[in-house]
């Protein structure tokens, strides 16, 4: 009896040491990932809310994105699917208190979508690698592998992921044949227009914005438009304290 008890304790101790070692190794790996590898891109976007708000009530970028990606217009807020939308300021930046600033600034909505994090929690939790991070930073989604467990939805701190609670196809009046439609029971989100970038185009939302409020580019290129903008002006990222390192920057 005594011997068995001791063996059991030893086994338990070794398990704990093994698990802790694994966790440390992962942390070390994650921090080395942030250093830019030469020759790789880090795609990102800078949003200028001031320009965005110039044309009050404009939804050009949302309309363009949802049209080219066959995002179904579902009215029921419980079953809504959205890739890019306007969120109230306190929802997008819950940790930014701005009590005394002119209300005109904080009462306006903020454009939100997938943050394409450096350290994406959704990718970490997905049990089938149906969502993964490309070397250029895009967090991708495979709708044919997704099992619909919604662990990524629980893991995303930004509410950027939508689940297809019902079959989305009947909601699409005139679907685009260039882009796949989805089935019920899978998760979807913004993919930074990987299909357009591959052809050398800009993301659909960037192209649709007449006010040029969205700037897209490579953070690893010091002369890119995103780097130039970020050099000149201070920018915020959503919930930066969580260590996810979002690629979407909001100019102040």
């Amino acid at each position: 009896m005594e011997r068995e008890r001791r063996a059991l304790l030893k086994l338990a101790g070794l398990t704990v040491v093994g698990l802790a070692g694994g966790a440390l190794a992962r942390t070390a790996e994650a921090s080395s990932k942030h250093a830019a590898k030469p020759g790789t891109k880090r795609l990102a976007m800078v949003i200028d809310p001031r320009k965005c708000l110039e044309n009050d009530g404009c939804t050009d970028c949302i309309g363009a994105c949802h049209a080219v990606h066959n995002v179904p217009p579902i009215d029921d807020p419980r079953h809504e699917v959205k890739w890019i939308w306007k969120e109230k300021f306190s929802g997008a930046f819950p940790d930014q208190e701005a009590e005394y600033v002119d209300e005109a600034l904080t009462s306006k909505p903020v454009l939100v979508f997938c943050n394409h994090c450096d350290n994406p929690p959704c990718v970490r939790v997905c049990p089938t690698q149906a969502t993964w991070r490309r070397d250029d930073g895009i967090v991708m989604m495979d709708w044919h592998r997704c099992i619909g467990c919604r662990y990524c939805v629980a893991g995303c701190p930004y509410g950027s992921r939508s689940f297809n609670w019902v079959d989305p196809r009947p909601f699409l009046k005139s679907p685009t044949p260039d882009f796949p439609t989805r089935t019920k029971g899978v998760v979807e989100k913004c993919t930074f227009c990987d299909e357009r970038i591959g052809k050398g185009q800009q993301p659909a939302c960037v192209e649709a914005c007449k006010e040029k409020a969205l700037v897209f580019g490579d953070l690893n290129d010091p002369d890119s438009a995103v780097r130039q903008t970020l050099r000149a002006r201070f920018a915020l990222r959503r919930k930066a304290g969580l260590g996810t390192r979002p690629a979407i920057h909001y100019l102040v």
Partner: protein
Amino acid sequence: MLEKALQGSRSYWGWVAFLAGLILLGFIAYMRQFAVGLGITGLSRDVTWGLYIAQFTFLVGVAASAVMVVLPYYLHNYKLFGKITILGEFLAISAVTMCMLFIFVDMGQPTRVLNVMLYPTPNSLMFWDMISLSGYLGLNALISHVTLDAERKGIAPPHWIKPIIILSIPWAVSIHTVTAFLYSGLAARPFWMTAILAPRFLASAFSAGPALLILFCLILRRFTKFDAGREPIQRLAVIVTYAMAINVFFVLMEVFTAIYSGIPEHIEHFEFLYLGLEGKATLVPWMWASAILSVIALVLLINPKTRGNERTLVAACIAVFTALWIEKGLGLIIAGFVPSPMGTVTSYSPSIPEVLIAVGIYAIGIFMITVFYKIALSVRGEVKV
């Protein structure tokens, strides 16, 4: 041995038919969900996990609790539990099966569920949960089969089974630890991101599970010739008492940390549970019922007179089980989603098909327990008819 389940009294068959009816209803509801999608549940964009995942979480605890009879018997040589270890192991098998079914019905694409094995992903806790749950199921199936078979033949169980039984002890702890890690590692959900979640899960498991086992023993004494004996039941009651006291202690520690630190995103979830947020208070009566039942249970359990009296002990066990079912099987999962990371407060209550599916899965579990206990008691010649 299965033939033992095919002979029984009228009341046995009546009970089995009743369960079969519930299973059928649940199956029909599931077929509807399979065709339409998870949109027929009460879940929504903001509350993406609900009744199913909460039942899964609660039942992992029930499954893990088998260790509370196995450990004293095999590690401390506490002979009095010899008669009931098999009941604990069968309870574990049924509970793990229900867990797996609850995960399955929660999948948006159930036909693709094997992708978890096809693309094994060690950085996902869900992968480890699958390994620990299926391993635990296998261990308990093997152990109960081998020990019961030996008992039927009137011989001692083979020696090689002993290390496997010992292995099942840390394994039981692992299933509930990994299940807690599913939640406690998410930066997006402050309500779950607490290091005490796994210990809390274990404490609630080790009170709810043995409480259920006490109830089962007393039911069996009433309807069959099986008598677990007074002493083992009293010993289980002591385990329930300690575990329940620790569980309540842990919950109060969570409440203290959230409220005293004053961080809104930590307080809001507790507000939603116990006071209601933005006029949405569906869970408030449930949570207070759970709190009151916990207090009643503790009073009845800590007082040696009421713990020793089997009538009041039954009341205490029902109170423990119900209180913890509300706490884990309703509050814990739903409150993690309310308010959402964007601060949205969304009401959730399960739809009728969702409830029918859940009841159907519970019926499958109870059916398994019925058949297993019938076999075990027939082997021992302790069934009346």
